[in-house]
Structure formats: structure tokens, C-alpha cells
């Protein structure tokens, strides 16, 4: 049912218009909203995780080395991570640069 568009016949709707695919919003590429992108300098990063816990869009996750990497599919470019990074390891750069 969860066609990405939602353009469906009334017969295809789940009972009461309920949504049956948990977390299907993860299909949505909110990264398109971004005009600035955060870039982390892992040389400066101390793996404190501030970027991770302060991100409203669940962009950061820890890689095998313990560094926090951004998933640009979701990153809206708000800049909280850069602002809050205690080591100034994250810089916001213009998209397309």
C-alpha cells in the first residue's frame, strides 16, 4: 500500500486510513532541503557524540572507528552540530562547493 506518492484507489487504503509500514518516512530524502552541509574533520573529533545527540534529524551514526558520520540523505543543514561541537571539528560549507 505504501506507495511513495499516496496516489491510490480507495480500495487500497488500510482500515481507517491507518499507516501499516512503521518508519516509512525514512524513505523521504530530507537532505534535499539543505543549502549548507556539515563536514567533520576527524582529526579534531574527540568522539564526544554531541553532534549525534543534538541532531533533530538522526543524521549522525558512529562508524567502526567510533567517529560520528553524517548521513546526507536526511541532513537538512541546520548547523546545530557545527555550533555545538566542542572541538570545532564540524564546519558548515556551501552545498555545491
Amino acid at each position, binding site marked *: 500500500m505504501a506507495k511513495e506518492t499516496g496516489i491510490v484507489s480507495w480500495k487500497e487504503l488500510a482500515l481507517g486510513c491507518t499507516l501499516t509500514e512503521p*518508519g*516509512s518516512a525514512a524513505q523521504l530524502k530530507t537532505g534535499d532541503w539543505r543549502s549548507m552541509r556539515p563536514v567533520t574533520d576527524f582529526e579534531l573529533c574527540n568522539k564526544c557524540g554531541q553532534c549525534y545527540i543534538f541532531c533533530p534529524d*538522526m543524521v549522525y551514526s558512529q562508524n567502526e572507528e567510533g567517529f560520528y558520520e553524517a548521513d546526507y540523505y536526511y541532513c537538512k543543514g541546520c548547523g546545530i552540530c557545527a555550533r555545538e561541537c566542542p572541538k570545532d571539528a564540524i564546519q558548515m560549507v556551501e552545498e555545491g562547493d
Partner: protein
Amino acid sequence: MGVATEALKDFKGFHPKKLPDVEPLSPGHRACQGCGEVLALRQVMKALGENVVVASATGCMEIITSPFPQTAWRVPWIHVAFENAAAVISGVESAYKALNRKGKIDQPDVVFLAYGGDGGTADIGLQALSGALERGHNFIYVCLDNEAYMNTGIQRSSATPYGAMTTTSPPGKKSIGQRTWKKNVAHIAAAHGIPYVATASPAYALDLMNKVKKAAMVPGPAYLHIYSPCPTGWRHGTDLAIEVARMAVLTKVFPLYEVIDGKWILSRKVAKPKPVSEYLKLQRRFRHLTEKEIEAIQKRVDEDYDKLLRLCAMSAEPAGDKAAEKE
């Protein structure tokens, strides 16, 4: 010992380096860039995990997580209307209670969460909230307070702070913006005599998540009032939500505390508070304020904080209680 004190006696907080990976609220939601409210909700959900049923009031957090055909929810979630999240969760909780007791299901450990914005909590939903708190349902209510009706375009609520500019409290020749002082719903919740009340801020994520965990552990109603910066409505940069939230705590504008079994406990004493003007100047919703008005706000903030300190001091005074217990 009160029920909350009893339930929390072996409480262990989250480890800052080992926060739960679980994200019951998925990415792909459509909150504004730099939304402090969805960030607070994300932290709440991380702390709660996945064995939970969530009831949402109408508001930003409802709109941005559930437009058909996608949902950002990985846990069962229901939105009914604006003013009734507390009543809806009353029904869910009671249904689980009855069905478990009657052997129709075996799910005794499900946690029940209702949340709403400040409009859905302090204004239109206050009656349903009060009813649910008074009836003693085992649930958590979270108010995600961004201090105005942001979903409909930044109209004032009873939780909008004095002096703030909104689209229905505009400053003008005869107006300084919001003319009333912010309604204190955490105090109203505490007046119900429920086991657990707390204020929290996404800038103090670990504190917030620990309070959510406590709220879940406590039997009966728990109320959390969470400060939720709104860059769009407060007119500040998209990168400033945490900075503003932190400043609200450091200026005593939004003190962090708990009320456990009626005992008031300051979570974080602000020993050397920053002047309120430092908080106000971060947000363009206050930029029209004159020195005189800022002074009035500073005075009110100091008074409120002193009141809170007195409540905490009274709670901490064990003399009467302890003496009685010994006898």
C-alpha cells in the same frame, strides 16, 4: 516512602557514552531545519524505547511525522485531535489494563506516552490533562513547549512568555507584544499530587533522558515539561536551538527540576546566572523590548526562581517528617 521514591530507589541513569541506539522516531520527518521540538521528542523516544504506545495531540509533531502515506513512527502511534491526547492515552492505558487482567493479552510492561505542544497542553488540552492526572492512569505526559501555536503560524498561547512577539500578540504603539506572564503547567501538574513531575531541556540531553526513564518507571501519572526551541517562531538561527535552550537554563528563565512524591528538587542549581538579556537577545521575537521591559522580565525571573528555591528548601527540610517517622 512515596510510590515514586520507592520505584526509583534503584534508578540507574543512561551512560553518556552508551546511549541507546534505538530511534523509535525515524528520520525523514518533515520538521523545520534546526527544530528543537522534534529534537526533544527524539530524545524522549530514545529514552523510552519501543515497548510503548504513543498518543499525539494535533500540532507540529503530529503534522511532520504522519502525512499519508509515510509515517516517521516505528512504535504504535495515534493522533485523534488537538485537546485530548491525555484522554486518548487514558483509554489506551485502561484497555491494556483490562485486557491484561482478563487474560486477553499478555503485555504488562507497555509504557504509555501522550504528548502535546504548549497549546495542546496549557490551553485547549488542560482539562483532559487534568482529568487524566487526577484519575491516576499509569502514563507519561510530555509537553513540548515552544511557547506559541507554531503549527498554525506562531499565534500566542498561555505559555507564550511576557513580551514575546507572535502573530496574535504583535508589538505596536499600544502593545509590547504578549501582555501576560507564562502559565506554569508543571506547577499545575504538581498540584495534582501525582508521583512525578519534571522540567527538562534538550540542551541537557542526558538529564532529559534520565527524567523520561524515571517517568516510565514511576507507577501512575508522570508529567514532563520540556523546553522546545522553535527557530521559525522565535526568530533565531537554525543552528541555535541548543544554544537558546542552554541559555534559558543558565539565565534561570527555564529552571530544571523534579517533583518526586511532592518533594521539589533542583536538577541544576544556577549559581552564577547570566542576565536574562543574554537570553532575550538571541531571539528576534524579543527584539522590540525596551530596557524597562527587560528589567521587568529579569525581576519576574528572579522572583520565580526564588520561589522555586523556597519550594526545594521546604521539601529538603526533613525535621518535621523525620521526627514524626522516628516516633
